[in-house]
């Protein structure tokens, strides 16, 4: 008998499809209340840190150059109080095979899929991760399907996503392109069931453990170069895996640098809106993913996300679209490095934060990404203009996402804007409490304190203020 492939029927089989395709039974980590065994889940990849490094090296991933941005540092010092202006370093992750740090996440997942005997992998992503999975699958001779949200209802595609489809196809992958909407998950489940392929979720323990090598390399390379660990590391934050994995890797190396999340400010734009889809100039690394995934990680395509950024984040800043484009131009014209804009979100934040830090401090931007037609400031701003966005030069504080993009009139106007961490933490606690219909247990309270990198007293105070 043919299976019922309707939306309702496939979504109803979600748990069994994920269990079969992710190679992991998530139920084993549950406590029965809101707490679950996060470290147990992270260890369930079955690979040690050294094995992950070896797997990545086999896939030509990692050990990317660490570059000191001397001119950008000097420029930041021009606008910093006397004695301030930390040294800014960047990890050139564009040097990975498919051009971004996402290769680290894909390498482990695809290696594991091959080891378990899967014939192919499915990945639901419009971003660099799709290209990374396709690239790793190409190396290992596995088939690959990338499912992407690409077009609005007029079939107008985001230049960055159209480019990503091209890149995935260049690696021999099949690309499924969809209009805007969360029903993408339905298509992804349907494909997993039809093909029996491995679910290379960005949010699986493989996807996040793969990033630990990045944090570890940042810590060890900075120490080798300067004799000390970095003082702060800035991570562009969307789904949270980049920050989570990097922070875990820093700690693994013994480095206790301040971990700062940075997202592009897209306040007011609805991520599932057909009309607004092409009115944003960033398809990832923005607050539209960063805030919801930080404050409630378990909204992804796996039951429990391995990406839990608030466990590690000390500070969370936003940066405007025009500021990231401006920084991308500065990276090219002052440092001779042309890289993709999305990867420069954390660089824009670091330029501002470095000015708060003393000159002998070190701040690291832990990624760059490749660039090319579509994925470049020129076509992205041109596309924005074609879609009715006003592009101008002025004060970026006045930028309104979906209406305007303002390139700073001078470098002093570029500012990282802090989000209230305790409000963000309280939001996660509120979301977690909504998943149970009883009083949180003492284990839950302990778990929540770890989830938000705070104390049990903070969790209890927050719960009291919510009820």
């Amino acid at each position, binding site marked *: 008998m043919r299976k019922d492939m309707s939306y309702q029927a496939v979504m109803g089989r979600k748990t069994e499809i994920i269990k079969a395709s992710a190679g992991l039974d998530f139920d084993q980590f549950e406590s029965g209340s809101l707490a679950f065994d996060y470290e147990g889940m992270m260890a369930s990849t079955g690979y040690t840190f050294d094995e992950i490094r070896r797997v990545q090296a086999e896939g030509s991933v990692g050990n990317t150059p660490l570059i000191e941005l001397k001119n950008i540092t000097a420029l930041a010092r021009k606008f910093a109080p006397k004695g301030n202006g930390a040294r800014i370093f960047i990890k050139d992750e564009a040097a990975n095979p498919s051009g971004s740090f996402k290769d680290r996440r894909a390498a482990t997942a695809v290696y594991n899929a091959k080891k378990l005997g899967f014939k192919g992998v499915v990945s639901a992503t419009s971003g660099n991760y799709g290209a990374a999975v396709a690239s790793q699958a190409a190396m290992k001779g596995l088939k690959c399907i990338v499912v992407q949200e690409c077009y609005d209802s007029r079939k107008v595609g985001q230049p960055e996503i159209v480019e990503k489809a091209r890149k995935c196809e260049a690696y021999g992958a099949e690309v499924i392109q969809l209009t805007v909407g969360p029903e993408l998950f339905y298509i992804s489940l349907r494909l997993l069931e039809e093909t029996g392929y491995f679910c290379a979720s960005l949010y699986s323990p493989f996807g996040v453990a793969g990033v630990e090598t990045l944090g570890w390399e940042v810590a060890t390379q900075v120490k080798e170069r300067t004799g000390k660990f970095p003082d702060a590391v800035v991570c562009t934050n969307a789904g949270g895996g980049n920050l989570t994995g990097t922070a875990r890797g820093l700690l693994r190396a013994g480095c206790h640098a301040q971990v700062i999340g940075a997202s592009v400010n897209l306040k007011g734009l609805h991520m599932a*809106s057909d009309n607004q889809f092409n009115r944003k100039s960033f398809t990832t690394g923005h607050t539209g993913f960063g805030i919801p995934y930080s404050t409630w990680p378990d909204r992804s395509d796996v039951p429990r996300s391995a990406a839990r950024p608030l466990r590690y984040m000390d500070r969370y800043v936003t940066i405007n679209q025009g500021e990231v484009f401006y920084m991308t131009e500065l990276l090219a014209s002052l440092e001779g490095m042309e890289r993709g804009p999305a990867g420069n979100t954390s660089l824009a934040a670091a330029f501002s934060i470095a000015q708060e830090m003393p000159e002998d401090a070190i701040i690291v931007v832990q990624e760059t990404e490749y660039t090319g*037609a579509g994925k470049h400031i*020129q076509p992205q*701003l041109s596309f924005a203009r074609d879609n009715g966005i006003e592009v101008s030069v002025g004060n970026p504080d006045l930028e309104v996402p979906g209406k305007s993009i303002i390139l700073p009139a001078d470098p002093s106007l570029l500012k990282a804007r802090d989000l209230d961490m305790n409000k963000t933490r309280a939001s996660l606690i509120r979301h977690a409490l909504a998943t149970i219909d009883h009083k949180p247990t003492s284990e839950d309270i302990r778990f929540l304190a770890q989830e938000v990198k705070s104390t049990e007293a903070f969790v209890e105070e927050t719960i009291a203020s919510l009820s």
Partner: protein
Amino acid sequence: MVKQGSWVSITRTILTAQERTASLPEDTSAVPFVMWVKGYLVEDAEIGQPAKVRTKTGRIEEGILEEVNPQYELNYGNLVPELLSIGDDARAILFGGEDNA
């Protein structure tokens, strides 16, 4: 007539606007959920008519034949003049000879 074996793209409506059940903004729920996929045409077909393709992973997909040898329409867009002076201005601040601090 497009010949069997041609590399094409097809499109199919997965859910009509009425069938969309997920919680969606009004503008999105008013339009269908549509898919595009590329593959080799299984049998001769006409543009705008139903067709079957064999995709890169060997799956068979059905939909309306849209394009033969689908193009990548990517470029660097219209020049954005606002970008021209960013580097020059920064270089003047940094290497201008005067201490601008």
